[in-house]
């Protein structure tokens, strides 16, 4: 963690820069979503638009986490603690997904509703 005044001053310049990058990232997100000639894939909202939007959001979030929240020079213990949250969230999402999709009893992702007989493999 930066402690001396000079190191802090350098950090301040970096924070301003990253703040600017985040602003630009936000503008890019809106432009990709609204301007027609930046619409990749099919006309309107489709899978590729979602991927691009979430990718930009993830980059912005990583910048906030790494630089504003000092994670880039933080102790390993913190990585473990915070990372565990994401691991737990992943299992939460997986459990909910398995409530809807049942790959054990249905080929591919059957919809898991008893009575819908497609793709059954008991």
């Amino acid at each position, binding site marked *: 963690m930066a402690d001396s005044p000079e190191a802090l001053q350098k950090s301040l310049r970096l924070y301003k820069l990253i703040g600017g990058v985040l602003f630009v990232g936000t503008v890019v997100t809106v432009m990709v*979503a609204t301007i027609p000639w930046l619409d990749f894939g099919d006309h309107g909202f489709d899978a590729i638009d979602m991927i691009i939007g979430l990718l930009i*959001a993830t980059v912005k979030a990583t910048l906030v986490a790494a630089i504003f929240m000092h994670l880039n020079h933080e102790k390993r213990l*913190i990585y473990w603690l915070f990372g565990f949250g994401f691991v737990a969230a992943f299992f939460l999402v997986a459990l909910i997904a398995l409530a809807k999709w049942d790959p054990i009893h249905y080929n591919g992702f059957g919809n898991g509703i008893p009575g819908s007989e497609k793709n059954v493999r008991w």
Partner: protein
Amino acid sequence: MEIPYIVTPRKDTGLFNSKIAIWLFLASEVMLFGGFFSAYIFLRLGADFPWPERTLPVLPGLINTFVLIFSSVTVVFAWAALKMRQWGKFQIFMSITIACSAVFMVLKGIEYNVKFHHQAVRLPDYTVVEGHLGYKLKDGVKLEHGQQPADEQIARNAKGKKLEENIINFEVAEVSFNTLRFERSWVEAMMARAMEKGATIKLAEKITLQTAPGESVSFDAGSALGLDLLASIRKAHLAARENNSAVRTDNLREQWTKAHAANPGKRDWELADQVFIDTAAIADKLMPEQPAVSFKVEPATTFQYRPRDLKEAAESGTLRDGTALKGKLLESPMVFHYVDAIDFRHLVMKAEEKGVDPKVAIENSWLLKENPALKQIWDKQQVALAQLTAELGAKGKVPTAKDNYRIGWQEMAYYSVTKIEDVKITPKKYSMPKAKEELNEEFFGPDYALRELAPHPDGKHFGAFPHLSLPREQVQFASKFAPAWNTYYAVYFTMTGLHGLHVIGGALVLAYYLFFGKKMYLSNPEWLANRVEIGGLFWHFVDLVWIFLFPILYLM
């Protein structure tokens, strides 16, 4: 005793304690918001109705994103100022951060308010109409076209609230109150209305109730409705209920004792299907109960109810407090003063499930068949759609379901002022023709007062948005743009609301350091710097969540 390791790092972790604590807390917050985000994803993927994509105005959300990012930068500057022992700078940056959070919440409040005043309704054939309802005007008030009613011209109810033109008129001949659940204010309102119209509400039949063994009280047929009458009946009914349940319990206990005596050694569950209350034996001990009281309204009078209070059928209705009405449902239209969007996507989904051609289904819908103004707008939409299909087809693409089947307010405002032969899409914009949006309209939705004055191409009419009177049978489900309307809005309000609460909480903590931190700064500045760092970490997390919320809810 001083709290350990608030400044000095612990030897084993290498960090001061609150840092570990806040990261643990943020991990739990990842779980919290992760749960909601994943719920949103599953709801969206599994939706059986057309998901409202990109229906929220983007500008307020965009400004909120800028505001939060800016506040993230200033909070980190505030922490740096504390580390460099610059109290003045800390105060300035922290004040800016808290001001940004206030701006965020104000913008959010405006967004919510606009949504809560915007009406949506689904017809039985799954057409969706969106717009604004009119307010009932005082009797005798007539407005010029384009004139907005002044506050004094709008009718108010007994509580001083404006009444939307969405009222159910029910002519009541007989009313039956639930003795226990009747709502006092509604009974009083009913009595007042009857008096106003010169009608009487009288007890239908004589009622005799026992208040105690040997004592009874009776109410004659023809007694006038009154709160004290209902209260006495209620008191007697409750006493009877208490007595009856005690009598039944005693008898049942007796029967069990007899059964056990007759069948020694047998367990309860072996005897259970043989043990019953001896109804003949207790019949004379039971007191009569009166769960409902019937009154006749003479002559039959029209009462007005809000749709949320009354479940109505052609000749009967039930109020939310259990009151049963018998009579006649009169004309109770839902009057849209301005229709600013019509959406056929759900109707098309249902038609495609049945194998019906969507365009045919739409042309046969009640909305287009019974409303020539809207049919004209639909025809103009088809002209524009043909042009858009051609333009997109040249690039190998097709118009979206929204382009095909939804007419939003900007499109409607454009069509209303354009002749059908002049309908033209803007080249290279690859979207349906839209009227230009003013800046205030980006926040508050269409400016009705302004657009009401837009001249029609036929030279005879004014107004960008058509008027529509929906008969009650055509209202399957009506709601404002609130969590009740559909899953998307439910999730939107839940997630942004929860996020907003986090913003308020974080701002309160930061405000505490700003206003009450001077003393700590003078005695232990490094501790204050650490506490502000922790508060800043929470603030960054709140910003992080918004960085994901904005694209997912507003742009996708």
